[in-house]
């Protein structure tokens, strides 16, 4: 790596973005997620120092160590509220959160819901492997009924979370689903998510070769499965277009989410609405205007005067 000078921003390359070699097991789906992330960053040429990767706890949450960027490895389940703080106070940064199904749908489930509702400007990638891998094979919130784990030797009995439904119901403004074996599709989803203003979430089916081998073969054509991409409405007025998926419709997103596994892949839902960043900035603007754009010293002095 050569040194960066203040004047000429160096071109962002995959090489510059690589950090520690991932500690993931050979064949883990997360490797391709990392590769796609590098590819998208290279395409978008975001200033290197403004990339910020944040994660909770889990195999996939080791992500920040494998990206050479400013990063933070936080506690289990709380990456989103932390990333919200970073995003809201630093409009210059591109904030990315990474995690798994345990982090996102179980211990951090409440935060996912509220982050979706608040709509801060950040992108969240959930590497969903349907199992707890780091702790060596316990049932996860997305494990299908009947899945045999160390905590459910006779098969999981609790109904799994439907991530797409949960996200639509929570009010997330960009929701997509992809598969770690589909590099091109995943890259496209990442790129669209990053360009979305507000909270964008992508669920990546990412196989745990150690504890849930073959979990996503049904969605992998090379393993005899089918990878069916959502056919989005183009608005060309044709008869076929009537049948296509309207990404602005919650009802249609729900219907897609109800399809039998492995279902379809692509953008389930997208809605343009004000991000929390914008709303808070509006509040600041009107607050400062109303108070006559005073500096801190004058604001405090005025308040003290009223307390006399």
């Amino acid at each position: 790596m050569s040194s960066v000078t203040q004047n000429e921003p160096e071109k962002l390359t995959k090489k510059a973005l690589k950090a520690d070699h991932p500690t993931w097991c050979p064949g883990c789906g997360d490797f391709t997620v990392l590769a796609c992330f590098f590819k998208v960053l290279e395409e978008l040429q975001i200033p290197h120092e403004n990339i910020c990767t944040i994660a909770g706890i889990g195999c996939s949450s080791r992500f920040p160590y494998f990206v050479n960027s400013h990063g933070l490895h936080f506690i289990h389940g709380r990456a989103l509220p932390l990333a919200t703080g970073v995003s809201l106070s630093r409009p210059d940064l591109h904030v990315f959160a990474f995690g798994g199904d345990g982090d996102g749908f179980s211990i951090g489930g409440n935060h996912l819901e509220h982050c979706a509702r608040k709509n801060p400007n950040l992108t969240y990638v959930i590497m969903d492997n349907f199992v707890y891998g780091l702790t060596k094979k316990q049932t996860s919130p997305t494990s299908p009924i009947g899945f045999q784990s160390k905590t459910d030797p006779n098969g999981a009995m609790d109904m799994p979370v439907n991530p797409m439904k949960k996200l639509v119901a929570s009010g997330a403004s960009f929701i997509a689903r992809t598969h770690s074996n589909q590099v091109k599709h995943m890259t496209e989803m990442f790129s669209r998510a990053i360009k979305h203003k507000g909270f964008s979430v992508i669920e990546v089916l990412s196989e745990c070769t150690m504890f849930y081998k073959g979990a996503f073969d049904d969605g992998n054509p090379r393993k005899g499965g089918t990878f069916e991409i959502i056919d989005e409405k183009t608005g060309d007025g044709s008869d076929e277009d009537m049948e296509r998926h309207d990404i602005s419709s919650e009802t249609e997103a729900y219907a897609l989410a109800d399809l039998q596994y492995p279902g379809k892949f692509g953008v389930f839902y997208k809605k343009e609405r004000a991000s929390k960043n914008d709303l808070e900035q509006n509040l600041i603007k009107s607050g400062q205007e109303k108070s006559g754009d005073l500096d801190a010293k004058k604001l405090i002095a005025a308040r003290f005067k009223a307390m006399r």
Partner: protein
Amino acid sequence: MSLLAKKSASANGSNDIKDAVIRLAGNSQDGIQTVGGFLARLAGRSAQEVMTYMTIPSTISGGASIFQVRIGSGEVLSPGDEADFLIAFYQDSYENHLSSLKEGGVCLYDSDHVEPDTSDKRFTFVGVPMTSTTVEAIGGSARDRGKNIFVLGLLTKLFELERNKLVKIIESQFKRKHESVLRNAMLAFDSGYAYETGDVLSQSYAFEPGEAVEDNRITTDGNTALTYGLLAAGVRYGAGYPITPWSSIMETLRTELPKYGGTFIQSEDELAAISSAIGFAYAGHIAVTGSSGPGLSLKMEALGYACMAELPLVIVNVQRGGPSTGLPTSVEQSDLMQAIYGSHGDSPRVILAPKDVEDCYYIAIEACRIAKKYSTPVIILTDQSLSSRIEAFPEPDISDVKEPTLDLQMQPSEFRPYPLDSQTKHAPPGTKMAEGKYPVVTGLEHDEWGHPSSNPELHQEMTNRRRDKIKQLASSLSKLEIYGESEGDVLLIGWGSTWGPIREAVDYAKRNNQKVSSIHLRHIHPMPNGIDEIIENFNKAIVVEMNDEGLYGYGQLATLLRARYSNPKILCLTKTNGLGFKISEILEGIKNA
């Protein structure tokens, strides 16, 4: 010891008094807090010392509520053990609060609602038809609103308060409301002012001129003072979740911060609140979160992270009666151990406690200074009594208030956030790194560069490092000042809001020729060095605190002091009835020690 020190009657037939405790007892919708607040602000503007004390039921409307205001021409350090005047709005206010009235005191009651036992010769009873006279004055409103302002008028006459100043305060309070509100308030006020109490209370009382400096004093409550301390110290970002009695701090920050270009977010829970605050801190800001007892417990895991990652953070904990939901609107100091040791693992952090309302402002500034300098979480342990009580104090000097800046200076290739030989320094996101190698902040044990490592020697070295930086803070603290003689029989040791009652107890004991002194800790963890040398010159050291003596017979600070100094002279005086210490209780404690 509030004493209605009567002096000889002056020419105009009034008695000059030095100090009076007035307790207003009614229901929570009667607006008695408003009256108390007016009296407190008037005292603040009139060079009087003032302190208030209130209880609000945790029900939204209805339920008994009191507001006690103590006004004095000399130093006022506590809300007062007993009341000189009781204003009773209802029969149950009369019945429940007569015992708080001192012998010789005056019970002023609403004769429309209260039937007192006037045969009780310990007190002077004065009946005033407050409800009906107010209704009459305002013009037949079915709802008995405004009797609080009627009472204010009555008190203004009785205590010869400065009517013009008070009218100005009332006007400024109601100016934002509809003009009829102010008109009705003034009608009620004038009606109370003109009311003749008749023969029973023929004289009025007047406060001696105050000793305090009249200019530039402000009157406010502890939570507000603390909030403005945070703003003055440059806090522009924060996150919180509502819980009594912390909520008013977050409400003020939420409405005020946008004016300062900042943001305070209401989080979905306590865990998210501290996580977002850590996010703000990581992004390069000095950030705040806060809560009360149960909420602090929920924040503990993330707090441990902030200790490990060494991020600056201010956490306000407005203590209330515990455990669990406990007594949400009562005072206690039982979160000390939780604040110090609450997290998993060895996670040293800093604990500060304000001693009075004025100190809430300065402790917030001190907390921000320490958090930044030592790159550490700092917990402010304030409490329910400080949160809502109103005091008047000199307006703080804000000449050195600056706008906070974000340091994104490019870092050299040898950048180490956690050097073993010097202070922690982070490179927030957005910082360019000379060799293009970017740092990751983690809760895993890490080396000087912040890189995860489970090397056994390193974990020991880093544990030492995190501990020693807090010890460095301890050695930078100035020695504790002793209130009273530096040697004697009993040394009282206090922390937090017990400052006032302890000082009054020392004054009283000294007047009675007892050799009693006191010290007070604002920095509790780390505590300043040299406390052992102070204790050495006394026969007993009694730690006065509002928590339980626990299984081994010592309060929480007493336990720590005994652990640190192994000194059997260290004793304790504890209480947990949800009320602050009375002077008489401390004096009794000294006697029994």
